[in-house]
C-alpha cells in the first residue's frame, strides 16, 4: 500500500476503497490518486458499482471500507436534480443559492446559448426533453465553484451535438484545474484521460 502525502486540497485520493451494499463488497479495492486536472473514465460492467462509487464520493452513500479524500464535488446522477415547475434560469439560481454563491444571469444565458438552449431559458423544465434538461444540468456544473465533477453516465439521452459539447466542457474543466470522475459506457473523447476499471472483489470480507 503506497503512502502518498496529499498536499493539494483538490486531489482525490482513494486508499483501499471498496464500496459495500448490504454487506456485500462491490468491487476490488481501489488505490488511486487523482490529481487536479485529471479526467477519470470509470468503467465497469452493469452492476459493478460505478454509480455507488460516485454516490459514495458525493457523500450520499455511507457503506464502504477503506478511506477516501475528496474535495466537495458536483454530483450528477441518473435523476437530474431539476425542479420541473421551475425554468432553467430559476433552477440555476436556486443551485447558486444553495451554495451561497452569487448568480450571474448573463453568464448563465451565455452558457445556455453555447449549449443551444437559449430560447428555452425561461420555459419550465417539465416542458423540456430529457436531452434539453441534461444540457441545463451541464450549465449547473460549470457555474458551480466546486472543482470536482462526479458524473454518472452523462452521455445518456444526448445527441451527437450535445455529446461533442459534453466532451468539450469536460476537457475545458480539466484544463482549468478541475477533476472529473465520469462513469460511462461510451468512451469520452478527452485527451489524457485515466481509465479506472472496477473489477469484481477478490474476497468477501465479513463486513458488518
Amino acid at each position, binding site marked *: 500500500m503506497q503512502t502518498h502525502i496529499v498536499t493539494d486540497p483538490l486531489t482525490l485520493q482513494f486508499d483501499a476503497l471498496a464500496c459495500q451494499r448490504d454487506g456485500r463488497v462491490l468491487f476490488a479495492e481501489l488505490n488511486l490518486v487523482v490529481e487536479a486536472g485529471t479526467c477519470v473514465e470509470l468503467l465497469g460492467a452493469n452492476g459493478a458499482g460505478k454509480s455507488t462509487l460516485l454516490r459514495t464520493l458525493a457523500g450520499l452513500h455511507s457503506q464502504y471500507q477503506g478511506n477516501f479524500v475528496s474535495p466537495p464535488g458536483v454530483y450528477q446522477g441518473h435523476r*437530474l436534480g431539476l425542479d420541473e415547475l*421551475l425554468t432553467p434560469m430559476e433552477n440555476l*439560481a436556486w443551485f447558486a443559492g444553495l451554495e451561497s454563491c452569487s448568480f450571474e444571469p448573463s453568464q448563465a444565458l451565455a452558457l445556455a446559448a453555447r449549449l443551444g438552449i437559449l430560447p428555452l431559458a425561461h420555459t419550465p423544465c417539465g416542458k423540456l426533453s430529457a436531452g434539453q434538461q441534461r444540457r441545463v444540468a451541464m450549465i449547473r456544473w460549470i457555474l458551480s465553484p466546486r472543482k470536482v465533477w462526479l458524473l454518472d453516465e452523462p452521455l445518456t439521452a444526448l445527441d451527437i451535438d450535445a455529446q461533442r459539447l459534453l466532451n468539450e466542457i469536460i476537457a475545458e474543466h480539466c484544463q482549468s484545474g478541475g477533476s472529473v470522475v465520469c462513469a460511462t459506457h461510451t468512451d469520452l473523447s478527452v485527451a489524457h484521460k485515466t481509465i479506472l476499471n472496477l473489477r469484481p472483489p477478490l474476497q468477501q470480507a465479513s463486513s458488518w
Partner: protein
Amino acid sequence: MVGALLLREWKILLRARASIVNPLAFLLLSTLLFAIAAPQLVAEASQQASGILWVLVLFTQLLSLDAMFRRDYDSGTLEQSMIMADVPFVAVLIRIFVQWLGTGLVIVIATPVIGPLLGLSWAAVPGTMLALLLGTPALSLLGSIGAGITVGFSRGGIILALLVLPLFLPVLIFGTDIVNAAGAGLNYTAQAYWLALITLAALIVSPFAALAGLKISVEMQ
C-alpha cells in the same frame, strides 16, 4: 441561502396551487361525510366537535405529509440539496415550514368555516384557532420524521401513519382539551403552554431526525 430556498418554494406554490387546495378540500370533504353519516354528532354546539375536528386535522396532515419530500426525492433535488447546501438542516426546516403553511396555517384560517360546520360553538372558535396555530406546527415537525424515513417507500403511506400517529397523540390530547375549555368558557392557559412546549420541543428535535431519515432514504435510492 435561505432566500433562494424560500423563493423556490414560493414559485412552486404559485405554480402548483393544488398543494394548498387539496388539504383544504379533503378537510371539507370529510366534514361533509360526517355531516351526512352522523348528523347528530355535528349538531349545533355539540360536545363532540372538538374531537372530530382534531381527528380530521390529523388525517389531513397525514395525507399531506406523504408529499412533503416526495417531489424533491423523485426529481433528485433532494439529494442535490443534501450535497450542495451549506446547511442541509436549514433546507429541511424550510421544507417543513412551507408544508405547514400549506396545511396547518390554511386549516387555522379555515377554522371559522369548518368549525361551526362540525358543530363548534362560535365562542369556541378563537380558542380553537389558537390551539390549531400552536399544534399544527408540531404535527408538521413530528410528521416530517416519518415522512423523511418513508419517502423512499413505494407504498409508504400506511407505514408513515403507523410511525407518526403515536407521536401526534399529545398534540391531540391538549388540542381537544383547549377546544373543549374554550367552548365551556374555561381558562385554557395551562394547556396552551403545554402545547407550545410540545411544538418547541418538536422544533428542536424534528429537523435533525428528519434529516437523518432523509439521508437513509437517499441512500436507498
